């Protein structure tokens, strides 16, 4: 039996939904005085437990709002669960939304280093990989101009290249294999498969059931914060489509 890299133990995530989000001291005091400080709780994840082994590719499926993205955020440490615990081993590269760390006034080159640093990579590593990243993105000479002049396709290419050229231990992928043109999509899909065979543990969210079927070994089906089904990719995918 191989090593556990992600353990999710009885995780519950509750959000408070205030009727009006209180943003200023004055509003807070006045609503508190009027006794209107009630809030509805929304349970995004309800006592979820599972674990992921090293090298496994786990898919998450479910409708919008089923709690998939919340789950990924809890695992990557962005959200702290209300109850329960998540234990992870190794560095996590979240590809939740590509290019969230980009600065539009900087050039492509500067952004590669900035984004790489945000994802937790060292300077030497990025310098070594720099050529490879630029080559993968196919941006060529545009790498030296500020990215505010990039098209959205170019931005997506740059972002994916930074995230995928590195060698993370845990990769969290949320709906990103649909960037760029068809050729680039095919290329990034290949790169993903390469990473998966190279021992990277992958958590994968997609609405494309074919992608899930192709890439994942195990799938969790979330519905309204509960695990509706967990098991082999084919089994879950078959019942999910019905």
């Amino acid at each position, binding site marked *: 039996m191989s090593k556990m890299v992600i353990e999710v133990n009885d995780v519950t995530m509750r*959000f408070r939904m205030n009727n009006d989000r209180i*943003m200023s001291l004055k509003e807070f005091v006045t609503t508190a005085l009027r006794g209107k400080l009630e809030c509805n709780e929304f349970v995004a994840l309800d006592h979820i437990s599972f674990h992921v082994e090293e090298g496994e590719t786990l898919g998450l499926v479910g409708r919008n709002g089923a709690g998939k993205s919340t789950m990924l955020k809890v695992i990557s440490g962005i959200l702290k669960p209300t109850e329960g615990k998540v234990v992870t081993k190794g560095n996590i590269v979240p590809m939740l939304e590509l290019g969230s760390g980009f600065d539009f006034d*900087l050039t492509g080159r500067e952004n590669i280093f900035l984004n790489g*640093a945000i994802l*937790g990579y060292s300077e030497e590593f990025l310098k070594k990989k720099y050529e490879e990243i630029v080559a993968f993105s196919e941006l060529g000479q545009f790498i030296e101009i500020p990215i505010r002049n990039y098209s959205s396709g170019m931005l997506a290419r740059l972002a994916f290249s930074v995230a995928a050229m590195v060698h993370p231990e845990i990769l969290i992928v949320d709906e990103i294999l649909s960037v760029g043109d068809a050729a680039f999509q095919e290329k990034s899909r290949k790169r993903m498969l390469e990473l998966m065979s190279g021992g990277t543990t992958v958590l994968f969210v997609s609405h494309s059931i074919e992608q899930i079927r192709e890439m994942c070994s195990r799938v969790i089906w979330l519905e309204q914060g509960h695990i509706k089904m967990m098991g082999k990719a084919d089994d879950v995918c078959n019942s999910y489509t019905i």
Partner: protein
Amino acid sequence: MLSIGLVWLRWKKGKHSYVVNSLVAVKRYQFLIRQLVSRDFKSKYKRSVLGVFWSFLNPLLTMAVQYIVFSNLFRFDVPHYQAYLIIGIVFFNFFSESTGMALGSIIGNAGLITKVYVPKYIYPLTRVLSSLINLVISLIPLLLVTIFSGIFPTKAYLLVPFVLACLAVFCLGIGMLLAAAMVFFRDIQFLWGVLSMIWMYLTPIFYPASILPENVAWVLNLNPLYYFITFARTCFIEGISPEPIVYVQCALMALGTLLVGALVFRRTQDRFVLYL
């Protein structure tokens, strides 16, 4: 000494305190910190013709304006008034710039905080550090003005880094406090504008401390900026080291403020993401 011993003991027992953890993290994230600082710095002067030269020019111009105004209007009896003025201006500018930048550091990096996990104190820290670069650059006009007003450098100049460090630590503390408060109450940004203006008038930047009336003078003793600026003025203008007690006062005020700021920040940081 005692606290270092304590931290070391806990380290040996395998209990990594918050302080030790943060220091380890600073080392681990130093590349990220460098990248963020250089981003802040680059984007500040992006598309301006003079660029970094503004860090140099700004204190000089402010000093010139205030010098003209105050030496004609009020005439304070302060020896080496230009030097007196520019030290106050440079120090207070750093205070208001770094706290103002740190104030928005969590809100401004919301896009990152909700997408990637990075220790959150890095954001106010990098903002203060990039202002610190500005401060170091503005030491050049400061030195030029002191030399111009007939003061020659002495060994006491070597003490200035100490007070700069105190000032930076103090600003980091205030900055962390403000950044955390800002997440929950966006009104802080407007409030802080007013508060820092009051703070400016209560700090002897362009007037000598002696003109304050008795009933206001006690405020000075509570004002860390007054201690820092006086320390710097003693080094630069009088060319001597301040009393030993002043070192202790400066260090304590800086570290105390950082402690309060860091504690508040740590207690609230898990909830930031819910309010962004």
